[in-house]
């Protein structure tokens, strides 16, 4: 095919140059004209060359219609219209404009060169273009969980051994309910036994059909309509990471309503999220027993029932990783069980954070946590360990000591833990001026310290950049994107990201706010590619300081010889530091 490429524009000719390259490489004969030629000159060349295609490009919108109209008229007058196909493309072009002016085809701003080539070669091409294939990734794959320093190993071994021995002699209503639920799932009728171990709110729901305040039932008709809606929610998958494999990008949902959750999930997936995390209401964590059925909640957090979880699962894309938070309350083991039953990939268990900042009694959550970790191991479901106690003021090294103790316990119990240091502007960092110059060094120091201790996956959250966000949409997206870029630079396994509504507290997070952040992350990842963010020497000083702090904390806990007592006594964070032992479930643990 003979193709004449014409930049009918004072300066812009990049598009025709790209097409020239592609057509030439495909064996077509091309003639590329320079920009800013007179129309009459171009027509003369067209008459002389009589190409099969005249491809005109126009970027500037100013005067475009008039100029393109005059050009096609002259081509017509020169008798070329019957011999050549005349095509126009560029930022100023729409298909409608091209048709109106009499061009054979028009290609607008978002056209891919493949589409133009396919048109010339008379081939069909899908409107979506090349399909991106996304696969569900195993975050924990390839990690040995080896403790790299024998001094740490000795302490962690001692602490984990003590926890296991202690927990083996104890049980709780949470553990017993999980055992009953497991049998119910197998078909046994044990509702009376189950409700015996529940709070009044849950018991009334089962026995007297009393629906808790702010909760409403979802009907089968609604489900049917949601399924119809989901079946129409097709989109082209996106990968945010550009040229690297890591990190996976997770978003949190928990609007209260499974319908709105489903919509947030679909929007997040469509804009490139790799995974989602389920957050339940805070009252659910303090209330003994779980409800059942399809339930919406008019406040923050989406109620955990097996039916709700299955509904959410039905909304998830095949490649989307799904984490259901379990650790923050008196239903931890049962939530792990239901999460597995509903098809979750991951769960969240950290007895230290959950009992010092999540409101659960340390003794109770330790008993429940150990059982929950055993379930996670049985189901081969990795669990992540958030360290959000840092947000209350607990120094990173103490939060990390707790995280590592539970992680090592997890490994001993056959599970696969994932470390979750927080990338945040924490009270401790503010008071001690660790982040006076930049937000990089202290966060890098955390990752270096953890990597020097254990070979384990690292997934900062929840979410990255905590306490650096404002209500300003641009600022919020920017700070998330920069923290995401830091995660990418450090080759971390995953990150949890917020929406640009992170700092907005007067209303629900919007789907647009989710897109804002994901778009910003995509551009940050594109900008950095495989390039690295270089921390200052201070990052290594912080790493040393954090590592020493972790060691000292673990040493004190090991010497104390009682993990639960260590939680009450402030070894993982004092009350002054914001670590307040929770009360939910206090006094419910019994020896068995």
């Amino acid at each position, binding site marked *: 095919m003979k193709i004449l490429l014409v930049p009918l524009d004072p300066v812009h000719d990049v598009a025709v140059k790209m097409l020239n390259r592609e057509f030439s490489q495909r064996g077509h004969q091309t003639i590329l004209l320079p920009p800013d030629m007179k129309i009459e000159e171009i027509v003369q060349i067209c008459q002389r060359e009589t190409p099969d295609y005249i491809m005109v490009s126009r970027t500037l919108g100013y005067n475009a219609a008039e100029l393109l109209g005059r050009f096609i008229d002259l081509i017509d007058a020169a008798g070329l219209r019957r011999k050549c196909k005349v095509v126009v493309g560029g930022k100023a072009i729409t298909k409608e404009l091209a048709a109106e002016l009499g061009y054979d085809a028009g290609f607008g701003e978002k056209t891919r060169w493949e589409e133009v080539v396919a048109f010339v070669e008379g081939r069909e091409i899908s409107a979506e273009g090349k399909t991106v294939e996304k696969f569900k990734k195993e975050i924990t794959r390839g990690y040995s969980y080896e403790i790299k320093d024998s001094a740490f190993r000795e302490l962690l071994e001692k602490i984990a051994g003590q926890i296991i021995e202690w927990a083996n002699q104890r049980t709780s209503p949470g553990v017993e309910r999980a055992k009953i639920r497991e049998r119910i799932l197998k078909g046994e009728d044990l509702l009376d036994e189950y409700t015996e171990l529940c709070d009044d709110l849950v018991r009334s729901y089962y026995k007297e059909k009393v629906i808790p305040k702010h909760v*409403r039932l979802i009907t089968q008709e609604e489900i049917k309509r949601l399924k119809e809606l989901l079946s129409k929610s097709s989109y082209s998958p996106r990968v945010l990471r550009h040229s690297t494999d890591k990190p996976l990008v997770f978003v949190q949902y928990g609007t*209260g309503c499974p319908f*709105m959750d489903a919509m947030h999930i679909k929007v997040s997936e469509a804009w490139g999220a790799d995974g989602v995390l389920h957050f339940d209401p805070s009252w659910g964590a303090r209330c003994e027993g779980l409800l059942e059925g399809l339930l919406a909640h008019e406040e923050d957090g989406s109620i955990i029932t097996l039916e709700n979880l299955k509904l959410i699962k039905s909304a998830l894309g095949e490649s989307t990783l799904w984490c259901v938070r379990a650790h923050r309350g008196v239903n931890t083991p049962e939530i792990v069980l239901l999460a597995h039953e509903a098809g979750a990939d991951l769960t969240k268990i950290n007895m230290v954070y959950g009992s010092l900042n999540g409101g659960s009694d340390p003794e109770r959550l330790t008993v429940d946590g150990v059982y929950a970790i055993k379930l996670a191991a049985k189901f081969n479901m990795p669990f992540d360990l958030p360290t959000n106690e840092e947000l209350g003021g607990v120094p990173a090294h103490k939060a990390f000591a707790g995280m590592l103790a539970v992680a090592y316990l997890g490994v001993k119990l056959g599970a696969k833990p994932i470390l979750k240091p927080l990338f945040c502007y924490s009270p401790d960092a503010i008071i001690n001026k660790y982040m006076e110059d930049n937000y990089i060094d202290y966060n890098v120091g955390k990752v270096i310290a953890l990597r020097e201790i254990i070979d384990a996956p690292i997934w900062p959250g929840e979410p990255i950049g905590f306490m650096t966000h404002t209500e300003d949409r641009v600022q919020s997206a920017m700070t998330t994107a920069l923290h995401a870029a830091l995660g990418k630079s450090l080759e971390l396994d995953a990150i949890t990201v917020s929406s640009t509504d992170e700092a907005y507290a007067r209303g629900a997070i919007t789907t647009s706010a989710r897109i804002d952040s994901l778009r910003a992350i995509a551009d940050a990842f594109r900008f950095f590619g495989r390039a690295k963010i270089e921390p200052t020497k201070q990052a290594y000083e912080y790493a040393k300081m954090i590592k020493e702090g972790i060691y000292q904390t673990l040493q004190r806990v090991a010497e104390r010889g009682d993990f639960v007592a260590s939680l009450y006594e402030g070894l993982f964070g004092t009350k002054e530091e914001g670590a307040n032992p929770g009360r939910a479930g206090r006094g419910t643990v019994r020896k068995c």
Partner: protein
Amino acid sequence: MLEKHIIDAVDLETTLLAESEQKAREIGIGIMKSFGFKDVDVVFVEHNGFAARIRLRAYVYRPGDKYSWASVGDER
């Protein structure tokens, strides 16, 4: 039936000539109400001397509401 297409909220960003942040808020809320929105708020405002960059929001649906896009009934 625009409600059939809006998932949750409508945001409007603009820069307002206003002598104070408070004045900008009042003008902003007034603008949103003049469009007929009821559940409105100022998400963000940054006032500097004579003008304010402002982001206004109207929730068409809050979680748990009856969503036209899902034709969800309300079975309380």
